[in-house]
């Protein structure tokens, strides 16, 4: 294989291809790069979303029952439920029965929120507005898992739900965001009723275009009163 072809292939993927070796080991610079990327992945799992960002978008914070990051990793079920005082806080602060409820959660990547929220969130609000859809009171869930939307749905009874949550980091990208959407999520909602746009970051699914499309999807969910596999797109 000639050099130009290899460079073209390398350019086509962020994967570690054609990195070379010395003996049976990778080159020092590539090995260091791998360590750096691994460290970034660990950091984003253990990291915190800054108060400044949450303030900028007027998001108050509610914790799930995860307690510590170690427990969060070993007990996914705790990331789906809220203690009584957390439930009371949600009920106290939020508008009940909104058309669209937006919740943001760090999930497995605090950097996903840091990197993408400034583009995704305002574009999403504009998109919903263009479909004349009103939103409830948005907030931030620390230590959340996808199905935390079911408990919040039970409490606030929204028509449609959007959860922007950090994805499990990889060695290529540690700040990728997912948007999970569901029509009337309640405790016991099936996974097949949820919809997702994943891999949202500047080098993946374009954040603003993903957000603009979320508006269209929510509009269709409300029109057809369903979501997931039974929604006709």
């Amino acid at each position: 294989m000639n050099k130009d072809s290899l460079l073209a292939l390398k350019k086509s993927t962020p994967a570690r291809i054609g990195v070379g070796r010395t003996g049976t080991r990778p080159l020092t610079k590539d090995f260091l790069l791998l360590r750096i990327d691994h460290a970034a992945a660990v950091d984003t799992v253990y990291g915190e979303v800054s108060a400044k960002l949450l303030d900028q978008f007027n998001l108050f914070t509610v914790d799930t029952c995860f307690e510590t990051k170690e427990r969060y990793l070993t007990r996914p079920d705790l990331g789906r439920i809220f203690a009584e005082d957390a439930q009371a806080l949600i009920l106290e602060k939020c508008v009940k029965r909104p058309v669209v409820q937006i919740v943001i959660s760090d999930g497995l990547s605090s950097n996903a929120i840091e990197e993408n929220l400034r583009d995704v969130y305002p574009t999403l609000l504009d998109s919903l507005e263009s479909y004349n859809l009103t939103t409830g009171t948005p907030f931030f869930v620390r230590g959340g898992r996808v199905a935390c939307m079911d408990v919040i749905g039970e409490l606030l009874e929204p028509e449609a739900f959007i959860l922007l949550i950090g994805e499990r980091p990889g060695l290529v990208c540690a700040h990728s965001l997912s948007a999970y959407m569901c029509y009337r999520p309640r405790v016991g909602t099936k996974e097949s009723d949820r919809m997702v746009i994943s891999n949202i970051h500047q080098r993946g699914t374009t954040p603003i275009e993903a957000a603009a499309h979320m508006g269209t999807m929510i509009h269709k969910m409300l029109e057809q009163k369903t979501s997931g596999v039974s929604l006709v797109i």
Partner: protein
Amino acid sequence: MPENWITSIGLDIGTSTTKFIASQLLISESGNGFSLPSCQIVDRRVTYSSPIYTTPLINDYKIDMDKITCILEREYGNSQIRMENVKAGAIIITGEAAQKENAQSIIHYLADRAGDFVVATAGADLEGILAGKGSGALRRSTQVEGIIANIDIGGGTANVALFQNGRAIQTITFNVGGRLIRLTENGKIVYISDAIQLWLKKNDFYLELGDTLTFPQVQEICNKMSDSMFSFLSGCPQYSAELLLLDSQPTEIFPIDEVIISGGIGQMMRNGPPATIRNVTKYGDIGPQLAHSLNESIHAYSFIFTQAQETTKATVIGAGMQNTEVSGATIYVNEALLPIKNIPICTIPVVEKNHQWEPESFQIRLGDLLEQAGKIYHAKENEPPIALALSNIPNCTYQILQELSASILEQFRNNFPSSHCLVILCDSDIAKALGQAIARRCHGTLDILCIDQIDFTYGDYIDLGLPVAGESISISVKTLAF
């Protein structure tokens, strides 16, 4: 995954021959359920191919419109497709035929008789690109390194299109073709195209109507013609090659690695050499000798010569199968406004080369562009005056999106105050976000159509068709419109 087939036709009216094909395009939504939806043409099949007709002429210059219409009607019948089912396709008038006095009226006339979604067009650039798509040159360029030149040589012109990595990067047209000089079977000259008179004189060929050419004389003319063209393409023009260029053409061209020759002359190159003047003039012109001269002379140059998958029918296959594309699947359109035809494309890079996003600079450059455009294009009521094509879009943040949409709206209103419809084309996946952002700013005073994932590099006009799958619409980009 949902999929649907659409019917497309192609009609190629060349200087010497006319062909028709019908094809089916398979459009498939290929989103995986976890990403944004996407939509593309995944298969193109020729379902019917007509015999090759001699282009009917009334005299040397005028195409016989009635007979062309008969051919079209007969071929619609033979192919067993109904005009109202045809959702895409192209009629293209090529070569010398396009320069003949009535090309424009023919295209207009035929467009009305071919189906609502058939593009009617003429022009050497598009023809060269379509031929390269039909001959397999474009596909070849995705498989090998380097630049592939497709030379489509018919009766009147040689249309050269250069491809690299699956994209057309340059087009050049020569007045090189089999019917530029027509001879009786004994070699008596009955026609010499005006387009090559200067070149002939410069090379000391003083030909008059009624003169009789000997076999060696025809050989010499054709050898010089081949060498002129190939030497120009190799970057060292000889024999006043520039006199064979059509209109204004680039003087510098990209270095070519591989050559594919299609068209009627490309087909004849597969035959053996003519041995007598009678062999040469079997079609009443110099075509067979030109084909042989090209065969001989190409070996003197460093290009690799590759066989075309399609020769005679390359252009019509390109027109029928490759002219239609589909847009991105997340776009901003109002279906009620579709289809819209013949929108002139005005291109602007959002960021200049080696620059960051600079809102003031963009605003100024956009203002200049739209001011110029406003002097040339005047839209009819409720039609878009132009399609604003945004190239070189940076990673688009919410802030850039807002500044971009504000600039576009302001400058469009300034320069097209009476227009109610704004069409925007984007080369990256931001159309829905941008469309929503502009629509939000204009509060319903403008109809906004914002479409993405279109290669508009080689086009002057765009037709926006109907939705074909999901939100995606069919589009065709072309070089001339009537």
